[in-house]
């Protein structure tokens, strides 16, 4: 912790947050929000939470910015301006925001200081993870083991939440019939539509490396920052890169809608299935140590490591499919005919 650096980053974060709200152009707001996410990522790194920083960089600064762009592309750049003076409602909103802020500030006083070693969490829970993770699970990165093993149930439902979000986007946006139920203005013509050789060539060269890196992040999550979420998002981002640089249809050719939704299901099912497998083998739900009965040449400790790898793969598949499907739905206005 270098407090000068922290101070600079925090000041910039506050400026970015204000700018995101104040800017009238939604595209600019999306870009500033990306900068905000990246600054948050710097702050996480500064605090030593490298895994969270990785997630913030890939999800917050990367994919969500693209999703905002896609949404702006399909709707409008302008904020609706209300001219009539609704001073009363504005004053009410200000008072509500100030009261909420006041309550939060008061509640914040009850929190322990950052890095306080005398809190119950630091005295009892954290030392166990720090000292016993390697001994229990043979996984050096304790964030991975806490997420995927000790707190595996939480992570399973996080995956389920992402899956549900994808389903919600499909349910709201996807339109199978030809006619429009609501008329939106035609999206801007950003490009004249002729293929740009340079962009296509570089994207074609980069995509294999991006996907390889994503697989590395998934598989190496036991030893270094990363894991299923980050790897899945990077995999999805590589497909989005293809869709932007080439054509909407190219991605649909590689990964059709049917496969996409199916993969989302399969990912969550891999996670839950490994849990049920443990249940069938006579252990608790998601207690991977019992997997040593069916995995060859593993003891109970190594089985936990392998079980974590299994569920990370499941998470990666689910997240990748959901990211692609959200992007395709937003950018094609749910019609899957043409898009950015």
């Amino acid at each position, binding site marked *: 912790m270098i407090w000068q650096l922290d101070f600079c980053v925090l000041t910039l974060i506050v400026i970015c947050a204000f700018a995101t709200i104040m800017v009238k152009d939604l595209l600019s707001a999306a870009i500033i929000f990306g900068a905000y996410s990246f600054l948050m990522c710097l702050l996480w790194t500064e605090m030593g939470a490298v895994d969270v920083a990785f997630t913030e960089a890939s999800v917050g600064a990367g994919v969500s910015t693209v999703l905002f762009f896609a949404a702006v592309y399909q709707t409008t750049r302008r904020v609706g301006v209300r001219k009539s003076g609704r001073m009363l409602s504005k004053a009410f909103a200000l008072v509500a925001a100030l009261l909420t802020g006041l309550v939060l500030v008061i509640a914040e006083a009850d929190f322990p200081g950052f890095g306080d070693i005398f809190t119950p969490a630091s005295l009892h829970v954290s030392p166990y993870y720090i000292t016993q993770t390697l001994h229990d699970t043979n996984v050096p990165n304790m964030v991975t083991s806490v997420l995927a093993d000790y707190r595996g149930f939480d992570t399973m439902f996080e995956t389920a939440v992402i899956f549900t979000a994808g389903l919600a986007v499909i349910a709201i946006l996807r339109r199978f019939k030809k006619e429009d139920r609501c008329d939106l203005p035609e999206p801007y013509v*950003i*490009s*004249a539509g002729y293929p*740009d050789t*340079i*962009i296509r060539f*570089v*994207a074609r*060269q*980069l995509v294999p*490396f991006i996907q390889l890196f994503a697989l590395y992040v998934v598989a190496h999550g036991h030893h270094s920052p990363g894991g299923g979420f980050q790897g899945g998002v990077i995999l999805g981002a590589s497909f989005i890169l293809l869709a932007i640089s080439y054509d909407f249809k190219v991605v649909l050719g590689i990964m059709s809608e049917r496969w996409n939704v199916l993969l989302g299901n399969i990912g969550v099912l891999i996670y839950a299935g490994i849990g049920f497998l443990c249940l069938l083998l006579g252990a608790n739900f998601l207690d991977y140590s019992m997997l040593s009965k069916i995995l060859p040449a593993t003891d109970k400790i190594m089985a936990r490591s392998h079980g974590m790898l299994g569920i990370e793969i499941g998470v990666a598949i689910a997240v990748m499919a959901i990211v692609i499907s959200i992007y395709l739905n937003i950018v094609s206005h749910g019609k899957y005919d043409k898009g950015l």
Partner: protein
Amino acid sequence: MTIAVIMLTLAGLIFFFATTVGILRFPDFFSRMHAAGKGDTLSSLLMLLPLALYNFHEFDLANMLVALKVLLIAVFIFMASPTATHAILDAGYEAGIKPWTKKPEEESP
């Protein structure tokens, strides 16, 4: 070694400064992107090279791997950054932005 690291970092900082000045002071979209694209690429390379060099204070396999990864990042920046600049410029050109000229414009676009 340390001197080389310091010199390279300083050079990178100078180029970053020039890039920032260029973005702020150049008259139109195309020349600003020119400053951003070229300056950014070169200065990030100049910042990453000393990072890779700095790892060689103790020469062993682990440091070598870290240095190799840093160099890989440099390679990818060298590929991706000019392409992104090109993509933005191309979009701007197709959107019909007029390049800046020294002649005063008679009619407003």
